[in-house]
């Protein structure tokens, strides 16, 4: 039985690793940490290219811009997998500040804190103040809404949000949608968006032009990475159905503390590394808990995701960089 399970896991892993076009015409590929190998969709044809370190400066007018996604800072965590998550978040900020093209803003895809404590949020806010990009857009992870159903999260980060913390905004012609899928989880289930949020989202995108690039960000993956570990969102298909008409959709998630990418039709799914601790590949350990690695390897498994938007190509390219 163990062998059979392992076989299934290997098969799933193989599918995720398969970077060819399969019979249904989907492109599936992995984005490897630190290699700078990037997949983009250009005119429906997948193009991979290695990003040069220095892509030249944006003049700030023509629409090209970049932003950085960070995730799972778990401030307050102090177990052997990373006794100093403040130092690694600071290293992520240093990394951001060293980028050749400074990002316009940051996205934090949740698990800001480890235990929803005010001092943990305070520490993250303080460290992020040192980033060159001053605007930070948050969505909550399950660790940010413990015991109070998201009340303290909303008090701090919920100034311009709807419902439990979802919202949208526009930057340089790109429409960003921040979603909450970590509340009201049902026994045995996965992440959940809920009817009210889905209804809001349908209205939010209804009047946008089909050519508008869309970026959706949420904590738990909006595609089913590995349901056995809860790595998926049960009603994400409905959310994605509202985005079918758009030519370019990028979905950015955290939660699984490792990079993974899948391209399916017009949608590119991407998960970011954590800045706190790595988690095992799906099914490769007894549980999805923190993975302890030799101290000298830790920072090679933590990192940030730099997302570049190139106007005209209507595509976004994600570059994962490890802290070391």
């Amino acid at each position, binding site marked *: 039985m163990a062998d059979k399970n392992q076989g299934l896991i290997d098969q799933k892993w193989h599918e995720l690793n398969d970077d060819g076009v399969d019979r249904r015409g989907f492109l599936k590929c992995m984005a490897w940490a630190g290699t700078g190998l990037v997949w983009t969709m250009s005119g429906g044809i997948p193009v991979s290219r290695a990003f040069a370190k220095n892509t030249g400066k944006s003049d700030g007018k023509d629409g090209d811009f970049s932003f950085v996604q960070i995730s799972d800072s778990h401030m307050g965590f102090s177990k052997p997998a990373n006794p100093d998550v403040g130092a690694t978040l600071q290293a992520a900020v240093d990394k951001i500040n060293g980028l050749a093209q400074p990002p316009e803003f940051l996205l934090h895809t949740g698990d800001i804190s480890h235990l929803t404590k005010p001092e943990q949020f305070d520490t993250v806010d303080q460290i992020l103040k040192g980033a060159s990009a001053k605007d930070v857009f948050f969505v909550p992870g399950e660790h940010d809404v413990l015991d109070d159903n998201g009340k303290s999260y909303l008090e701090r980060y919920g100034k311009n949000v709807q419902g439990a913390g979802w919202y949208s905004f526009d930057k340089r012609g790109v429409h960003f949608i921040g979603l909450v899928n970590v509340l009201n989880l049902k026994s*045995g289930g996965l992440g959940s968006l809920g009817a009210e949020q889905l209804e809001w989202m349908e209205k939010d995108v209804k009047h946008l032009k089909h050519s508008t690039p869309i970026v959706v960000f949420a904590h738990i993956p909006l595609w089913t990475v590995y349901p056995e570990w809860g790595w998926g969102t049960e009603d994400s298909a409905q959310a994605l159905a509202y985005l079918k008409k758009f030519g370019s959709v990028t979905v950015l998630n955290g939660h699984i503390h490792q990079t993974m990418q899948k391209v399916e039709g017009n949608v590119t799914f991407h998960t970011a590394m954590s800045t706190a601790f790595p988690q095992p590949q799906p099914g490769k350990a007894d*549980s999805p808990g923190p993975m302890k690695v030799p101290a000298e390897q830790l920072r090679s498994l933590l990192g940030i995701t730099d997302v570049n938007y190139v106007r005209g190509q209507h595509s976004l390219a994600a570059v994962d960089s490890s802290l070391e």
Partner: protein
Amino acid sequence: MKRTSTWVASLALPVMVAMLLVLAGSPSVTANDQPSAAAAEVKIDNFSFGPQTLTVAVGATVTWTNRDDIPHTVVSTDGVFKSKVRDTDEKFSYTFDKAGTYPYFCSIHPKMTGTVVVQ
């Protein structure tokens, strides 16, 4: 931990008498396949409850201990009991005063499920 026991007060007197008799009788039960009386433990390891199904006698107090380095919760699916978030080595206890089947889960990691059977 505090336990919710308000419903006990609303029970009819004969039921309470019957329950007291059950409680009084249970310590003498010694057969292996009989549920244990006073206390029982559930360990949380590797994102799972062990044992996943626990059988206890009416009146038993069950204590959950989180032995993972990630916080978990213990939440009754039917709203009977609900722990605060439990970090490493923290415990939650609940006393089962009424026979029945009590499914529960971790509200942070809902794939984690368990059941307490009270007889």
